[in-house]
């Protein structure tokens, strides 16, 4: 192929598969139709949360845009400390519980996983590859497998016949009793993703540090941690969304303990008892959604970059 025809080659965008497949205009139209369809359910929730109770059962939420009739009453009801909503202190205590559960359940596994990932990537030892494959394999083990025995460990400990191998930890129904399972369940994916990232750090950097006589602990703190921020941020989003939105682990390990129930858990329960109170359900749901959305949009530029490091060729 001559240089000339190459220069005359149309712009790359015209050869893009999507555009060729549907034509540029159709591609754009298709994407926007899907985007709008994807937004309609959330819009319905959002609109309903601002409608008076009587309106919600009288006609569909789309009528809000035809005959605007807004109220902030639903939001003041769910936050009020009077018993309008049937929960004595409103939903704010549950919002706080969610934060108290989520923040440590993000920090603990990321710290422990970064340490493990560094070790498996740069402090290799006999069998370190086997350990890595083992951890990788644990990634997709359904957590359902672990729930009951872990709960037993927290309440009664581990016994072999008459011997007590591990005494009961008595942390079920406490915050610690939900941080620990979340940390455990997060480790396989966290170690795998961080390992991908950390093992792709430049070798020269590590070797230079070793020549300077820096210990592994210094290398970890001064070099690995700062350089791994994109991967750590990506996993932070992932883990934050997972813990904040989790229902199964919370249901199992809070055991319905009133003081530590996270919001999502309470919401699932209220969906039953508030069956007719759609004005309260929708506004509470919107509050639940707000936090992960804020986290996602503030960190999203790290999301793909950190998540895909070393895995997309």
């Amino acid at each position: 192929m001559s240089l000339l025809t190459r220069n005359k080659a149309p712009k790359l965008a015209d050869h893009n598969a999507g555009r060729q497949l549907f034509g540029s205009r159709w591609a754009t139209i298709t994407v926007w139709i899907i985007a709008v369809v994807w937004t309609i359910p959330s819009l319905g929730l959002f609109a309903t949360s601002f409608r008076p109770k009587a309106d919600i059962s009288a006609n569909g939420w789309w009528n809000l845009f035809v005959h605007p009739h807004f109220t902030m009453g639903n939001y003041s009801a769910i936050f009020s400390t009077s018993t309008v909503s049937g929960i004595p202190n409103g939903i704010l205590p549950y919002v706080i519980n969610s934060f108290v559960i989520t923040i440590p359940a993000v920090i603990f596994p990321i710290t422990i996983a970064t340490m493990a990932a560094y070790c498996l990537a740069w402090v290799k030892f006999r069998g370190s590859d086997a350990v890595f494959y083992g951890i990788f394999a644990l990634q997709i083990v359904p957590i359902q497998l672990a729930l009951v025995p872990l709960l037993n460990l927290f309440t009664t400990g581990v016994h072999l016949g008459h011997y007590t191998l591990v005494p009961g930890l008595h942390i079920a129904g406490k915050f610690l009793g939900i941080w620990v399972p979340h940390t455990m369940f997060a480790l396989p994916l966290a170690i795998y993703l961080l390992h991908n990232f950390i093992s792709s750090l430049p070798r020269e950097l590590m070797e230079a540090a070793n020549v300077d006589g820096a210990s592994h602990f210094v290398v970890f703190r001064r070099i690995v941690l700062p350089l791994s921020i994109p991967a750590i941020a990506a996993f932070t989003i992932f883990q934050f969304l997972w813990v904040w939105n989790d229902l199964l682990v919370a249901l199992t390990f809070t055991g319905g303990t009133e003081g530590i129930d996270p919001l999502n858990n309470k919401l699932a329960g209220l969906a039953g008892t508030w069956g007719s109170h759609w004005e309260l359900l929708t506004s509470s749901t919107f509050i639940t959604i707000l936090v992960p959305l804020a986290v996602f949009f503030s960190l999203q530029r790290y999301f793909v970059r950190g998540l895909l490091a070393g895995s997309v060729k």
Partner: protein
Amino acid sequence: MSSFWRDNLPKLGQMFASIAIFLAVLSVIFFIAGKANGKKQRPIAIFVFLGPALILLLFGLLGPAIRTLLLSFKGSASHSWVGFSNYTWLFTDESERIVLRNTVFWILFTPIVTTGLGLLLAVLLDRMRRESIAKSLIFMPMAISFVGASITWAFVYKYANPNQPQVGLMSSVARHLGFEPTNWLLTQPLNTFLLMIIFIWSQTGFAMVILSAAIKNVPTDVVEASALDGATGWRLFRGITFPMVRSTFIVVLATMVVATLKLFDIVRAATGGNFGTSVLANEMYSETFIRYDAGRGAAMAIVLFVLVLPVLCYNIFNLRRERTIA
């Protein structure tokens, strides 16, 4: 308000204290272990870096998984061995058969639809102008919990009696099109597919974002060269783009298969597993924590694991191959 803070301030205090203790303990260990030198330095470093993770995985996943395997061969209160009777019950009981059927439906449809739709969007979005707004809108449901998603979709599936106004979008559209809507979530097996739509709605954005990043990584000169050779549209996609992102496609597909199998929240929040919509993961919870039959619940967890096993083997096979190439 003061009683509110009396209840809630200690929680926040507990959180900050726990984080501070955690980081302080780590720093002390790092400081002490960092003092070691000579031959001992390496083993100490390995122990400190890897030890916590391995202990947590041993007690949190490996040990419990083995114990669940044992429990699945025991009776409801885990006192006596019952052989395979929990498994025979699971595969012969009339209502459990519906649960298994639903689980198979979920695996057959949701992962491929979600990943396929994600790929379609990724291809269409590639180098589209002002893509980021559309992308964010499609990704947004991913940040919504499955519980929130189920409540959100209630306003699509809601149904009212014929003489009342329809406040559900789907019911209203059906009526405007001239046929009387039914109570969608009570109609079997349609309701299972309606719940699947909630999952697809939630996860397509994730598939799209990952696949979109993979497509951006396809070397531009390859696409350019094959375009000059006359490859267009569908042929370009089949011949160049798809093979280049195939491995990512399969990783996303596998992730979706696992997520589908573990799925619990949508079924629980939307129908509570009633009206013939239950799946294994939900049934496992009900059996263990509501009907208190630890044996049957454990058997279900094991079946879940066996279903995930092929994905696991494939992933490990792939990882080994990638690492030997790299």
